[in-house]
């Protein structure tokens, strides 16, 4: 990861790999790329029915929109997690035969998911605007939200991709952990549910889960929902999440570096 120069020199390779990841994902399916747009629409529909049936509507204002924002953002994280498992081991044929900077593999996985996410995000925006729920006054917050979210996903891709080369258990662990992570993240319920467990003043603890901060930013930017942090300044709480995202990215880089020398032996 020697910075911009390295990325520029390898731009075409990264583009090719991202294109390949996307192509393979939709290879053979009749609707192909349209699934990127269709899936979020289906989600919105399913959750609209589910929220109404379960009478969850009162949890937050605009509960359905709150939920859909969370779900779609969560899909990006979990999509990266799942794809990253095979980002290196699934490219054994390349890793074993050609030398190139290995970071390109998790990076292209994260980027392919990002492309997909941006498409679904566009559908989400259209829906919010069309249904009259969009409050885009703090729209600029999408920039830090995307930056944190992508850093987190890239770090996770490096970590899981590397780990899965050496320990095939990673796949199963990730399956379980991501499920637990989903329920400890305020996707379906408001942050206040967690804050109720925490004494006033240390609400930022909830933001150690980086997804909590990321989702709060998205909802603030899209729906105008205030960032709740149990008495802590919202900016400080989000900063905690941002720090965790950065830490995950650094950890991912270190893991990849440590593993790099032995990929060829194990694959």
């Amino acid at each position, binding site marked *: 990861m020697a910075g911009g120069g390295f990325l520029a020199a390898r731009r075409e390779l990264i583009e090719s790999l991202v294109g390949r990841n996307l192509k393979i994902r939709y290879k053979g399916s009749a609707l192909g790329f349209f699934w990127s747009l269709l899936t979020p629409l289906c989600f919105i529909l399913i959750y609209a029915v589910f929220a109404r049936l379960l009478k969850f509507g009162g949890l937050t204002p605009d509960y359905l929109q709150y939920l859909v924002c969370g779900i779609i953002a969560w899909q990006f994280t979990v999509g990266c997690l799942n794809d990253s498992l095979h980002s290196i081991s699934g490219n054994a044929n390349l890793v074993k*035969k050609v030398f190139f900077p290995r970071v390109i593999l998790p990076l292209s996985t994260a980027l392919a998911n990002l492309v997909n996410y941006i498409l679904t995000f566009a559908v989400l925006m259209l829906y919010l605007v069309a249904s009259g729920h969009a409050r885009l006054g703090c729209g600029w917050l999408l920039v830090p939200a995307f930056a944190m979210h992508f850093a987190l996903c890239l770090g996770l891709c490096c970590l899981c991709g590397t780990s899965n080369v050496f320990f095939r258990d990673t796949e199963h662990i990730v399956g379980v952990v991501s499920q637990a992570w989903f329920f400890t993240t305020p996707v379906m319920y408001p942050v206040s549910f967690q804050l109720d467990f925490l004494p006033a003043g240390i609400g930022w603890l909830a933001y150690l889960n980086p997804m909590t901060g990321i989702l709060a930013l998205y909802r603030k930017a899209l729906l105008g929902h205030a960032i709740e942090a149990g008495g802590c300044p919202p900016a400080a709480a989000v900063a905690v999440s941002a720090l965790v995202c950065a830490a995950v990215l650094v950890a991912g880089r270190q893991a990849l570096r440590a593993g790099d020398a032995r990929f060829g032996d194990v694959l």
Partner: protein
Amino acid sequence: MNPGAAISIEHVTKRFPLSALGSSSLKHLVIDAFRRRRAKVFQALTDVNLEVRQGESLGIIGSNGAGKSTLLSIIAGTITPTEGRVRARGKISSLLELGAGFHPDLTGRENVFLYGAIMGIPRAEMRRRFDAIVDFAGIGEFIDQPVRFYSSGMYVRLGFSVAVQIDPDILLVDEVLAVGDADFQRRCLKRMNEFRHSGKTLVLISHDLGAIQSISDRIAILDHGTIVNVGGPLDMVDAYHGRMLAEAAGGAAAATEWGTREALIARVSMTDASGAPVKRLPDDRIIRISLDYTASRRIAAPVFGFGVATPERGVVFGSNTQIEGVAVPEIAPPGGHVSFEIDASALQAGNYTMSFSLHSADHQTNYHRLENALSFYIDKACRGFEGVAALPVKCTVCAN
């Protein structure tokens, strides 16, 4: 790194943890940590030192498991050496383990461009070379099919074609010649020769000794992870051949001698026209055998015989003093000398071994028999033909 060196391999040792070769799991890691046990290791290469000069073509030969492919992967940078280091000057393209790392779900075209991108070749440049690549591979319209539908021959042809056409400074080739039909092998050899003559560096592995000998400037023999010999191609192929036979003779499969031992074939050697012992078949392709025997008693009417065999096809030709009408009334202590001259110019290229026997005229008593006592190698047959031996042919064709 010396100026003029394209690849320099310095004290390279590679150990693979054996657990990593099998299934790796967290369980093993935890168990190993608790038992404080070091994982078993497999030593693939031991202190390998080698320098390949710019524009040189180096062949690597050795039996299966000798470490050839590991060495090539280390040069390619896909495996990191445990100790020592490898430095290479220029762009390396490699064809390791048959195939350039194609993704089965992508089409040939997509794979070609992906490989180009990995090698850092701009897409525009790849587009210009694309036709030449497809042309050389000879896969026609299959280029737009996913490569999983390719035959292994097509896969290798496309792999070789891409690896060569991206115009590397150093080309690493692991056993391409084993796959593909005769025509493709010929084109491969031709292309590798062109590559060589354009001043590029080539490192290749092959079990096809004839081919590797013809294309290499130097050959290194690898045995159990060490380079045991480096030198001119002809000498090395002979040396390797000698090693293989020595190993085969050491094995249980080759019972080397038997008989009543009333008389013994004490020594056999191959000589040149002047009678000096030679290790290699002389250029005139006459096998001159000098055989010394000893006898412990007087034996009437013995027969001296020999057989020429290939490892794959068995005995190709055999004869003896009886068949040749050479009368041997008797042999008596202490012994004597026999010589044979055999014209081998009809033989096909390949490895041959010779066995000798001393037996009674009625073949009932075998005094002594020596299996695989000598070996020789024919680099290239005198003329093209199918099979083991070239028989004289006269042919006329006429229209009615």
